[in-house]
């Protein structure tokens, strides 16, 4: 295992904070509600996500799982007319506090999207984007940081000879792992993943899943997925959402083998969704 990237952070960076201990709640929602204009998308969500663990959010399309994920790093702010109520905290800091430093917040909470979205720049420049922009790493240390991140994203061996090649020339699975490496370069403590494998073939999916399994040792990972086997494979805990509400939340084994709620059972046995 390579040492954590955080160790190489330069002084004067936009933000650095100690991560909470394993087992403590890294992300916690209390009666959290969210609206798109007049439409309420999330209703009174109360759940806590363990630090340094993988939590999956499953549920039928339109159940609000992606919306919730995007509330955690406030990506929904890009859409006009949205509104939030209740409490949502990341490492004890309220996310919807008007005084929040959004840039610092997003450095703590990295995100990987459904479709791999590398910049049309070189592989190196993609990984170096966040640290360069936010002055986290000096130019001299950048090659080391890029290498560490690519190693952690299990991509280094495939690209080490062509770091200057355009990132868009990589395969879909490689692009997605590059996007993970790019997110890691900011040394976040929380990593949000919005259906990271839905556009990948089974082999690429397996690689990304193995990667997620590795990364949980150092990061709090929240993954939204349509694929229930994937949730069962990678997540310690699983939350089931339906129509903007939390139906059931518990250990993954329990959710998939002995769900407490009838709706959860109906969903995981494929009767709807």
């Amino acid at each position: 295992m390579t040492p954590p990237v955080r160790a190489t952070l330069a002084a004067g960076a936009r933000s650095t904070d100690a991560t909470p201990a394993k087992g403590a709640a890294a992300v916690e929602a209390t009666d959290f509600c969210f609206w798109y204009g007049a439409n309420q998308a999330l209703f009174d969500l109360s759940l806590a996500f363990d630090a340094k663990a993988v939590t999956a959010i499953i549920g039928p399309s339109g159940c609000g799982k992606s919306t919730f994920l995007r509330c955690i790093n406030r990506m929904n702010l890009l859409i006009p007319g949205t509104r939030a109520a209740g409490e949502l905290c990341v490492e004890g800091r309220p996310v919807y506090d008007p005084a929040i430093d959004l840039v610092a917040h997003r450095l703590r909470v990295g995100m990987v999207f459904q479709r791999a979205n590398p910049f049309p720049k070189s592989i190196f420049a993609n990984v170096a984007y966040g640290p360069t922009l936010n002055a986290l790493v000096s130019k001299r240390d950048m090659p080391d940081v890029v290498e560490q991140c690519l190693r952690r994203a299990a991509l280094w061996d495939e690209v080490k000879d062509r770091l200057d090649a355009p990132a868009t020339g990589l395969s879909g699975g490689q692009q997605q792992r590059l996007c993970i490496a790019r997110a890691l370069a900011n040394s976040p403590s929380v990593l949000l993943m919005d259906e990271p494998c839905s556009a990948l073939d089974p082999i690429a999916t397996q690689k990304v899943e193995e990667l997620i399994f590795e990364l949980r040792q150092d990061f709090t990972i929240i993954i939204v997925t349509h694929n229930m086997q994937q949730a069962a494979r990678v997540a310690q805990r699983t939350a089931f959402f339906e129509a903007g509400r939390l139906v059931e939340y518990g250990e993954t084994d329990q959710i998939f083998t002995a769900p407490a709620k009838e709706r959860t059972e109906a969903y995981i046995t494929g009767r709807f969704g």
Partner: protein
Amino acid sequence: MPTTPPPDDVATSDASLALSAWGDRIFKGLLVASALAAPALLVALLWQLLSGAAPAIGAFGFSFITDSIWDPVAEKFGALPLVFGTLLTSFLALLLAVPLSLGVAIYLTEFAPERIRQPIAMVIELLAAIPSVVYGLWGIFVMIPILQSSVYPFLEANFGWLPIFQGPIYGPSVLSASLILTIMVMPFIMSVAREVLLAVPAGQREAATALGATRWEAVTTAIVPYAKSGIVGAIILGLGRALGETMAVTMLIGNRHDIAASLFAPGYSMAAVIANEFAEAGLGTLHASALTYVALILFAVTVLVNAAARLMIWRMNRGAGK
């Protein structure tokens, strides 16, 4: 599938097939003809220009481009001031129009309130539809008096130590022509740049934002670089328009066959000299041939600029792996 379908079915389908094969052939012929028409037209045009300019090419050769004397009476012709005037006005127009247009395009796609984006974009596209003679008229009656009474004296008073802002202030001048060109090319650059920026996938903005970019940083480090080649295309479109613009420039440039250091001095452009003198040059005279030579050079400059721009876009895209 049956191996022997009913016979009359075969007959009808064969007949309609034959008919549609004929239709296909005619349709294909029409398409090939129209596809070939464009290059054929280009070749014919080039041929006409070359044969028309041949006497002047024979008389002056390449020194036509380096000589400055334009004397139809003595039949001495040199086009340097014309080439210079065209390139200078176009360059100045782009210098002013590019930052303004990109600023507006970025504002309209990234920062403006949703409800004003569409109306403003529509008004801008309307600006592109105004005939150039109207711009010229407006330039003479409205813009030049304002420039002459306030803007030019201000420039002279404050920046008069620069050679380009010295000398007597004429209304019609290189600077006036450049300014009207600026106004004329802006709508083109703005509307194309806006389309290009709109076409940037939302994922690029999201990626930058999620990595800790502010709105402004997302624009400068992710969105604009993604749209780079399209933006260059927009600028080239504006440049093409500026190089070939005739009417408004003819009305505002002052039409003096001279190269002056000062932008307040009148100048001339290739398109303007052709528009001004073609009627007085008799058919078959050396004068008419010299004007055709100018047209040939204008044509070559436009083609070269476009080719250079395409090369640039191609190299940029190759570097970005798009």
